[in-house]
């Protein structure tokens, strides 16, 4: 099974390595050649330098044979467009898109894009973490 990872930053590179270790055929795409180093010296998956908006780059990365695409560049709108191109133009149903802005993530989720919003997740987790703290209340001061 083949997966394309568009945007090989902290998130993309780690997802790439994880899926690779689970037996996926992984191609990472990033516009900076230096991003390859994030995949580690022993990376034996593929790596393509180029912009994910460029369909020639997507084709070179093998999108025509891919079963899944992960879009995780550092730009929300870039991810939104690339995700829709992968889904609508190349017909890849399992297209997963990172969108940091909760409002846009929700809008595009309603329109059928699989969006992941780390901001919403962080909000939920942080709120829940505070709720679950056992806070020892200071004994109320006795009025004299």
């Amino acid at each position: 099974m083949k997966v394309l990872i568009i945007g090989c930053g902290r998130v993309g590179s780690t997802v790439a390595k994880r899926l690779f270790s689970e037996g996926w055929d992984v191609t990472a795409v990033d516009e900076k050649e230096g991003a390859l180093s994030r995949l580690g010296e022993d990376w034996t998956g593929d790596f393509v330098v180029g912009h994910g908006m460029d369909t020639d780059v997507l084709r070179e990365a093998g999108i025509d044979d891919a079963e899944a695409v992960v879009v995780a560049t550092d730009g929300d709108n870039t991810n939104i467009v690339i995700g829709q191109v992968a889904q609508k133009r190349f017909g890849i149903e399992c297209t997963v898109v990172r969108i940091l802005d909760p409002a846009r993530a929700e809008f595009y989720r309603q329109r059928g894009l699989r969006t992941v919003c780390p901001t919403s997740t962080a909000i939920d987790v942080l709120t829940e973490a505070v709720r679950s703290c056992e806070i020892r209340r200071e004994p109320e001061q006795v009025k004299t």
Partner: protein
Amino acid sequence: MYVLIAGGGKAGANVMRTLLRNSHEATLIEQDRDRFERLEAEFEHQAMLGDATEIYVLEKAGIRRPPDLVLALTGDDEDNMVICQLAKEKYGVSKVIARVNDPRNQAHFDLLGISPTVCATSSIMGLVEHEVPEHELVHLLELRKENLEIVEVQIDKGSPVAGKKVESLSLPEGARLISVMRDGRSEIAVGATELQPGDQVLAILQPGKEDELRRVLLKR
């Protein structure tokens, strides 16, 4: 008319100025602070600082009314696409116009149903083609909705159709001649029109039929 403009560069600011001069109501959104301050000095409260792809910014700018027209004129094609999608599909804006900065992104705008679009580079390239005679088939107009285009071809001495009538040509399926321009005068191409070297012929055809048409008219 109420118009919402995203992007206060040269295009956005000039369009804004013109709309206001013609007594339209308009809001201009610009995300760069320095640029915004210059715009604010001129347009006052009608200029707004913010990222026009953020929903709360659009709402503050009045997208809920909704505007009669949204112009996505930023220097980022991704941003322009998202602005248009939000305007049309979330807020029911009936008319959007988007700027295409990189002509390679045109296909993405088309895929997402964003139309009409304006691309300076493509327009300039069209004019360049028109000026450079060695391009034998000049693209004059793209009718995107109709999936047709209008091209211009110059008939020369070596052309196999020189001296022939239009009705005798075996034009490719999906291509028709429109008019013939000779000695500065143009006439509609009918069956009896005879083609001569030096004629400038306009043809309408489906995209992708250019090579076939070129073969028939110019034999190359």
